[in-house]
């Protein structure tokens, strides 16, 4: 039996009828064709599916779409103009923080959360906060450097708006 759900996805109102067992990752990928969010394990460990749920990082693979009524979902596609994400993208390229690109969307969502929530994070803290995002290609060095560089740049600047548009 399907249930109605109404939610915001990347700033757009979405209405759908969904089976309760449909997870949020499959919902955004297969129903809304937003395929930036990737699926890697379906048990919450690898982090490839990390999205923003009401502004906070969450696993799309173990949250069910039907439970997101009235909630705000933001995937990587909805952060293309986000100022922190713009910086992170440049930093990820400068620091060679991706190779195959599969873990990258979830990694960016988590990276953005670190930058916004923990402006004083040092390298050790960055690494701990990345524990929930697995990468098999890069060995994390470029990812850590990229996040550190964005943190450092922001520390020396006046604050910017950080709400996603």
């Amino acid at each position, binding site marked *: 039996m399907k249930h109605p759900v109404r939610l915001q996805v990347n700033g757009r109102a979405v209405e759908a009828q969904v*089976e309760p*067992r*449909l997870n949020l990752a499959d919902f955004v*990928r*297969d129903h809304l*064709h937003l*395929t*930036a*969010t*990737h*699926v*890697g*394990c*379906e*048990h919450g*460990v*690898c982090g*490839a599916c990390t999205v923003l749920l009401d502004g906070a990082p969450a696993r799309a693979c173990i949250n069910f779409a039907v439970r997101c009524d009235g909630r705000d979902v933001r*995937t*990587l*596609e909805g952060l*293309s103009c986000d100022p922190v994400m713009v910086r992170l*993208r440049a930093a*990820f*390229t*400068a620091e*060679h923080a*991706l*190779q*195959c*690109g*599969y*873990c*990258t*969307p979830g990694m*960016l969502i988590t990276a953005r959360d670190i930058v916004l929530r923990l402006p004083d994070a040092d390298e050790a803290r*960055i*690494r*701990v906060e*990345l*524990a929930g*995002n*697995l*990468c*098999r*290609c*890069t*060995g*994390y*060095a*470029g*990812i*850590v450097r990229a996040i550190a560089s964005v943190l450092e740049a922001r520390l020396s600047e006046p604050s910017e708006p950080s709400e996603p548009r």
Partner: protein
Amino acid sequence: MAGTAHKGVGASLPRKEDARFLLGEGEFVGDIHRPGMLEVAFVRAPVAHARIAGRLKPAGFEGRVFFMQDLDGVAPIRAVSGLPGFKASDLWPLARDKVRHVGEAVAMCVAETRAEAEDLAAQVMVEYDELPAVVDMEAALSAPPALLHEQWGDNVFLESLVDGDLAAIRARAEIRITRRLRTARQSMAPIEGRAVLCEWNGRLGQLEMHSAAQMPHITRAGLSECLGIDQGAIRVIAPDVGGGFGYKGILLPEEVCLGWLARHLRRPVRWLEDRREQLTANANCREHHYDLTLHADRDGRLLAIDCEAIVDSGAYSLYPFSACLEAAQVGSILPGPYTMEGYRCRTWSVATNKPGILPYRGVARTGVCFALEVTLDAVARAAGREPYEVRLLNLVQPGQMPYDNITRKHFDSGDYPEAVRRAVAAIDLPKWRAAQATGEDAGTDMADPRGGRRIGVGFAVYCEQGAHGTSVYHGWGIPMVPGREPCAARLSPDGILELRIGAHSHGQSLETTLAQVAHEVLSIDPEQVRLVHGDTAMTPYSTGTWGSRCMVMSGGAVAQSCTELGERVKAIASAVLDVPPDALQLRDGGVHVRGSDRCLSFAEVAHLFYRQPQRLPPTLEAGLEVVTGYRPEVDTGTFSYACHAVVVSVDTQLGHVELLDYVIVEDGGTLVNPMVVDGQIIGGTAQGIGTALYEEMPYDMQGQPLASTLADYMLPGATEMPPLRIEHLQTPSPYTRFGQKGLGEGGAIAPPAAIVNAINDALAPLGVELTETPATPRRILAAIEAAEVERSGSGTHA
């Protein structure tokens, strides 16, 4: 030979491919939608070894569930090796009479959604008559509880022997060290699993398969063999792929099944491997056993290696690499980068009730390096010398290069001892030896939680053969042989250079680095270069991406085709500018008349050719599309090498190992993009650290895989990576286009050896020597306790 322009060879150019991935606009197989697409789930064997006694489809869904007998015209997957004595196995895409490992596919279910397909799968009834499970490779060989392939009479895919008469050496060797060593079975675990989307194109009469594949042309060939249709009727496309590492260099039973299904249903069908499938059905690499003896003189000079090694090759020989490769490779590469007088190595590739083996990054080199380097440290201890000194004593010297070693591997170039010397200096060995001597690290005060930590330093050296050519590869006799590597280079009418290669880039950064090669040859801006790869309809035939071959082979091919294309460009410019071709040079994105400012950009040359042929002499034949096939001057492969040095702190209370410092001194010849090279090294090292400390797929006595989720199968995260310093030597290969060497696997080769050597260095005062990976806390604490018991002679230790 180093790049002169900052965008050519030698430049750490940021990656072009990043743009789409950072926006989430990559296109992986799972991202592709086709109208009417159906989803597939497989019924997989829950037992390791059984005859199939009966099977039943759920009532009312007979048209949605398929057993092997339904797949008319489909032949089993056969990956046969031409090596003498190799025994073939038939891998039916869906199990026909027997299942031989947990997770083997038995039935295929199709539905509108994956969830519904799994519902169907849960209702399929299969009756299994269980047989004893063959789990331990030594038992499989010498005392098998059962035979996987009864007609063989044993469980041996292949026995191979590199023979040598060691009697005289044995008699005079003053040091003899014998060890039994093991590397555990692992899962390669790329973050994206395997993925297949298949549909029948009626207009073209062609099966179109998107697959997360490393070697699409090989997949196409294998599909043709199994489906009984010609290759012209098959198109394989590897789009963006989320990591391979060897896991996706295979013709999959699932690909064969979906290939059949797409034609049968005339609808697109999709299967996306989930993590549980990957872990439970496909932990398929790294499991080796070594009985190794090193004979040395009193100074630690290696006289001979004598080895018997077993590779646990799982239940089936997989396509194309076959079950011969890893075990036979052990015999040919065990000598490593060292000189010696004698050598003997017998290996067995053994069949067990586990998934069939695939070559994982480093292939046999990781196990071989582990076995040899750990035992060499024991030789050093017996000789009373520093481990690094024993390396320096035995490494092939730069003056000997090129060097044909005792197994006739042709080392092209390098200064192996210099890598060791620099690593020793960079890790600051004297500092750590001093710390060990003062007991500064140890801390015996049990009230101090940091008490009981012991510091150790470990080294490992290896050399890595990459870009194996025809002459050294055809001897395996497996279903693929690399030949000349092609590249089709074409200038578009507006001057964009399209490079078509048969290899595939899934993290290797080829879209950037091959553009750098084109820039090096033509001076065309890398932004004006497009790499086309992955699609068998659009690219020339290649064996694909494996064995660290791409920059040597595809890079050489790109350079060769671009060189020829440059001649064509000059021919056109020569005609139009009315100067002889040798008065022209390619620079700054165009063709220039030497000593004048007359020039034509590539775009202008292309425009002339395509849009204004009337301005060209009618005798000008050659156009702006070139296909050439490249092979290096000497095609026996390149040998990159490195020394890894690591400092560990072992917590003797908890068994935890902290990596305090990690240095890699590596030589990959000319580095086309040093940033990309470092990325490959670091990524490989992370996998090596996984092998050394964390990753293991254990099986119980019934052949059940015990780590079915990522909570149990521990992958290294950001906190498991040490501070890592990399130094580069760049000794060019004399055989390749720019002197570049294949090097992508190296990071995954040395860490288990270096880290376990460091642990053994730390715990040597306790009488502990580990000889097994991963060096988990449980193993470390058990070894410490066993050594205590042995030392004290006491039998009880509560």
